[in-house]
């Protein structure tokens, strides 16, 4: 457990993924057909990462992400790199979007650090802090098929140990902010919620980094206020897409953690206005004190177009700036 260190009031960050530029999508297709080498693909992933770091600096985000240009799906990426998984095949997510769904076929565990090299690369490109980004054990288990473990509990706890090792390796590599995404945490709110809490205890045990968990798309009111027991410093939640309805829930019991408040919709093409973002933050301030608030998009932005993503990030940063100025009564110099 840790403080936000020296991030400003209403600091801005992102959930994790950004869209991949056309040259990278093309390269990934070619890599699948083995028309280009792994090294060539990696070079382009690095180029795209560099571009996103630059874009985030230009826009003025406070806490950066690497944009996950080298990841496909957030679960399959870890499954690919870990022991005990195979890819079962493509399963439809929505519309004509498909993802490779992993299947647990043996004991799960880490062969080697999964995200550390990419974290170090991204952090080397900027003086601003970059978040280490992990997928949580409950979500990895829930979004995989399981042909090996007799119970979900055994699988989740084994994964928690592996993700915890990864988190500690990230910290050793210099990560001061680590995000462990659990978008599936409310899948079985009665049956499994305690298990998800127990798993996160294992993941963040002994960390001194500031920890965040991103949760989205599901019945958050159903797990509130129990979710405040999750062993992280901040809960990052999608508020915009439900028109800030969650604030009503947060009025029922004091929000005792930091919140990453989602102020732009990750699944709409429309770019929000600065005033719309500012208004969302002001609404949140009526329920949660500014010291506990960070500002972010609702979810990863990888399904948006690049210009939509840039537009949304800019509206987010500028909207946060407007409210920050209102709070501090000062005019903050623009970074550009």
């Amino acid at each position, binding site marked *: 457990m840790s403080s936000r260190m020296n991030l400003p009031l209403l600091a801005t960050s992102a959930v994790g993924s950004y869209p991949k530029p056309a040259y990278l999508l093309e390269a990934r297709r070619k890599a699948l057909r083995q028309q280009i080498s792994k090294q060539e693909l990696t070079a382009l992933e690095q180029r795209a990462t560099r571009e996103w770091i630059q874009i985030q600096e230009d826009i003025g985000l406070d806490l950066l992400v690497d944009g996950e240009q080298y990841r496909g799906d957030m679960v399959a990426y870890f499954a690919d790199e870990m022991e005990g998984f195979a890819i*079962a*095949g*493509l*399963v*439809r*997510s*929505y*519309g*004509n979007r*498909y993802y490779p*769904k992993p*299947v647990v076929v043996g004991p799960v565990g880490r062969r080697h650090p999964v995200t550390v090299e990419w974290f170090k690369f991204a952090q080397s490109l900027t003086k601003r802090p970059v978040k280490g980004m992990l997928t949580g054990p409950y979500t990895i288990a*829930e*979004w995989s*098929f*399981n*042909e090996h473990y007799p119970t979900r509990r055994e699988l989740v706890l084994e994964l928690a140990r592996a993700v915890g090792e990864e988190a500690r390796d990230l910290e050793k590599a210099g990560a001061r902010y680590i995000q462990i995404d659990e978008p*599936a945490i409310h*899948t*079985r709110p009665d049956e499994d919620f305690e298990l998800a809490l127990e798993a996160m205890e294992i993941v963040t045990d002994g960390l001194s980094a500031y920890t965040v968990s991103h949760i989205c*798309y*599901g019945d958050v009111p159903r797990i509130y206020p129990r979710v405040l027991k999750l062993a992280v410093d901040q809960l990052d939640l999608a508020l915009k*897409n439900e028109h800030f309805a969650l604030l009503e829930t947060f009025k029922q019991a004091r929000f005792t953690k930091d919140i990453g408040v989602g102020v732009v*919709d990750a*699944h*709409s093409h429309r770019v929000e206005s600065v005033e719309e973002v500012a208004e969302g933050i002001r609404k949140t301030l009526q329920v949660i004190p500014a010291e506990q608030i960070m500002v972010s998009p609702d979810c990863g932005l990888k399904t948006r177009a690049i210009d939509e993503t840039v537009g949304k990030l800019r509206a987010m940063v500028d909207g946060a700036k407007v409210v920050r100025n209102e709070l501090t009564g000062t005019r903050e110099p623009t970074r550009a």
Partner: protein
Amino acid sequence: MITTVIGNYPKIPDLPAPGKWRSTVERFQKGQIDETQLQHVEDEVTAEVINEQVQMGIDVITDGQIRWEDAQTHFARRLSGFSINGLQRYFDTNIYFREPVAEHAVAWTGPITVSEFTFAREHSSKPVKPVVTGPFTLAALSRNVHYPTLKEFAIALGRALNRELKALEAAGAEVIQIDEPAICQRKQDFDIFAEASRVLTDGVKAKKILCTYFGDIGGLYPQILDLPFDVIGLDFVAGYRNWDVVAAAPFTRELQAGVLDARNTRVESVDELVRAVRRLTAFVSPGRLMISPSAGLEFLPRSVARRKLAALVEGTKVANQDLKGART
């Protein structure tokens, strides 16, 4: 004792075979082909999926819902009164659907699934079961900004979809399945569900299957048997509590029993199926029993879905022999 499926089926083959449907939709979205060309490919894939079920030996098939983007918008887009909003998660799955929004009074303006049904029937040597998303589930998964209450919304949808059932019946459908997974999650609204079901089925003489999945009907049994459905579909995997639930009172309807896990790749053994059927026949006679997966098979990659169908057919065949042996 016969076999059936719940509804949807994987639209694309396994890698590395190219997904014809997927690339066609992509071309359609880019404006490179028109809707007729898209429909042509959807017809082809539907015929392929029908053929796969028939070949595997399923007794009552569906068209695989290849043309459905999801079970909600397929209807909401074709009824009047709805607009379509952003993505929502579909129950406890990692599947997303676009949220329908009831902005005005909802109404049926013409057949939605009839041409799908007649196409499937022409392409199948086995009986085809059309599937309609039920009014309660459609209401529960939509945003309602028009009706003062969920009850009024669900009943209006019941009235609209009643005309769809009648259109299917007029087209020759002898069995119609109504999917109501939402009732397993929202048991407190059973009265609304019951009322919407009565409006939905009013005057419909076809055999009606009420299909539930993703949970159990604990707390709704046996009163659910009083609703105007001939067959009740239950999920015995995610809704494993149903095993105890149905023990509480005589099962007076036919049963569509979802005993194969539609959401995990592990394929059940013949032995598991036989044991499940023995448990089922303790409270329903084999003649009143259909065996099925626990939900639609689109949660699985195509090759696994096919293996599930094979396991379903083989397991049911052996279970039938097992039952005959037990009687003699």
